[in-house]
């Protein structure tokens, strides 16, 4: 066993894990607040990736800078999707089970529409560009420059999200709604507005993750779903509704996948991911990092 190589592989996984975390945080925010599981999360990511691709290839915009466009653009799209598809659903008083089932169906529909729409507009051709895809040498180790940059950017975006949730009034309202929906309502939190903000935020974060991923991997209209699944694994690892848990869960999954694949074979990547998922579900159903071990329904804040 080559320890240096193992470290190398683990760090590679950690870098990818940072992106997994960012993808999962957006999805988890939506679920924690609205009990809406957006299966089309990966498709929003895919759209973010394509936007960055075209901004870079056609307009020469720096892919990192393009986040300033893709994030807000898809945020607005998310707000519209919320207004058009979810608002009525959420307004009706129903049981949580009904709400979860119906919102799941809606997002499945959205998934197919977005995927096929992308196929019509952009075709199934592979698309990718070269950006910082050179090795970066630090103290005798070799790092893929684009992964390091993507990881750092994801970290900055996540930090900004935390600041927003902690320090601003809107963020506080979101956290309040997550912790105590009834209490927050009584304190005058505008629920439909908070929901729209939250859904848009989740969509925008998906787009930003997609923009970063487009620096690393080729795009097709079908890249989304595997990331949604990865995000679900991360969310369950970290605890439903727990943003901090998603962060740690993402990093952990990245490392476990990479080291596991290195020790076994790439065929087993999905087996490893799902193996971790099953273990956590059996041993700690509330998530690895949910210190209070609450039931999934009673999600905590950040």
């Amino acid at each position, binding site marked *: 066993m*080559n320890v*240096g*190589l193992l470290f*190398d*592989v683990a760090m*590679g*996984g950690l870098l*990818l894990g940072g992106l997994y975390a960012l993808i999962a945080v957006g999805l988890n925010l939506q679920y924690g607040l609205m009990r809406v599981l957006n299966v089309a999360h990966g498709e929003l990511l895919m759209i973010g990736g394509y936007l960055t691709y075209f901004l870079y290839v056609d307009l020469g915009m720096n892919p990192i800078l393009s986040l300033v466009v893709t994030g807000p653009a898809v945020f607005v799209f998310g707000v519209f999707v919320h207004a058009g598809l979810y608002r009525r659903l959420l307004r009706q008083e129903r049981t949580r089970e009904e709400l979860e089932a119906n919102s799941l169906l809606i997002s499945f529909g959205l998934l197919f529409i977005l*995927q*096929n729409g992308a*196929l019509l507009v952009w*075709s*199934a*051709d*592979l698309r*990718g*560009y*070269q950006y910082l*895809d*050179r*090795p970066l040498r630090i103290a005798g180790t*070799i790092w*893929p*420059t*684009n*992964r390091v940059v993507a990881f750092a950017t994801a970290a900055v975006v996540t930090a900004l999200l935390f600041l927003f949730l902690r320090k601003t009034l809107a963020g506080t309202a979101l956290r309040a709604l997550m912790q105590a929906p009834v209490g927050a309502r009584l304190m005058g939190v505008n629920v439909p507005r908070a929901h729209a903000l939250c859904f848009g935020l989740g969509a925008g974060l998906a787009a930003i993750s997609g923009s970063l991923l487009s620096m*690393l*991997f*080729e795009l*097709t*209209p*079908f890249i989304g779903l*595997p990331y949604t699944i990865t995000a679900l694994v991360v969310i369950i690892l970290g605890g439903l509704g727990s943003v901090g848990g998603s962060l740690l869960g993402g990093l952990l999954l990245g490392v476990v*996948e*990479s*080291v596991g*694949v*290195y020790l076994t*074979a*790439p*065929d087993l*990547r*999905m087996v490893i991911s799902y193996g971790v998922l099953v273990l956590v579900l059996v041993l700690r159903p509330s998530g690895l990092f949910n210190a209070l071990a609450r039931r999934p329904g009673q999600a905590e804040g950040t």
Partner: protein
Amino acid sequence: MISRIARRTFLKGAGAIAALAGLPASARAQMGPVRIGFTLSATGPYAVGAGITQAPNYQLWLDQVNAKGGLQIAGDGRRPIQFIEYDDRSEIETAVRLYERMITEDKVDLLLPPWGTAMNFAVAPITTKHGYPLIGPTVGSLKLKDLGLPYFYAILAQPDAMMQALAAFLGDVKRQHQLNKVGVIHVADLFGLEHQGALIPLLKEGGFEVVDVKGYPLGVKDLSDVLRGMRAGGVDLFLGLTYPPDTILATTQSRTIDFQPAVFYTAVGTAFPFFRDRFKASAEGVMGVGAWNPRVPFPGAKAYFDAHVAKHKKEPDRWASAFAYASLQILEDSVAKVGLDRAKIKAHLDTTEFTTVVGPVKFTRGINTATPGMVGQWQKGEFEVVWPPERATAKAIVPKPKWE
């Protein structure tokens, strides 16, 4: 855009009706189009390959034949071709169902194959059962011989021939450069498994040190961990038995982790112009399965290349595209000689040596034995044939220049 297409379709339809109206009723029945059915993956993981290698050539051929007034049928003059096409969504069971449907419900005259080894494998028993000849341009499998599918024809050099060519080429490299350490990755589907199964014994026979052999699933997202292992293991000869998305992935990630083997070989997708355009200077020296380019000395090769560029505003890929087109040339020739009787077409396929854009093609028990296995290499923007020597359009560059 939409209105333009609609108008064109309308004009075509109107023209056809006007033409038909002028004919006596008896002639009209015979003049119906020749209906040719197929599925191609417009969605799913096979869509990329299908959209590059098969769909454009089917369309090009359709246009060319119909521009000539239709398909020449022995004893029946020319009749236009009409395509009956479906999206199999890269799902094998969907493709199987659709081929059954095209035969039993749509009652097509002829069939063209879907994209990819596994797909062809799945539909070939059905088309054979109903006696429809099928010439697969994207099929590489040794098991075809064992299955006993008399109506199925494979036009590409098969895994044994392909891997023998690769091993012979590597033997040459070994003698000249004393490079010996091999690393192999392969996609874990029929294509990858069979090529790997054919290659590994040849490598051992050739006295190579096989450092690592790793399989990975279709649609893999990350290969960097495996490539890091190969870099650390000192692999000189990297052989990827890959499909298009993973060909790109392995190349990108090798660049980013500074994995610099002397031979960098990947399989399906390497010969795509997209590969060259994507990697620009870094494509230089990358080797791949194949190969074909417009400078091969066969009749119609350059004309085909130019027609493809003119119609689709993109170049054909430098391997199976030309074979896809050649398989249509063969079908066209067969129908011109023996008509639409499918049993006669089969007899013609079994006994004739065809002249095509990929050179002579001769089927021996369903497999084209006239085309040898080949190795290609990107050199200054063209995918040159570098092995075997009698087919080469350029000399191989080894070691590969470092990634730009």
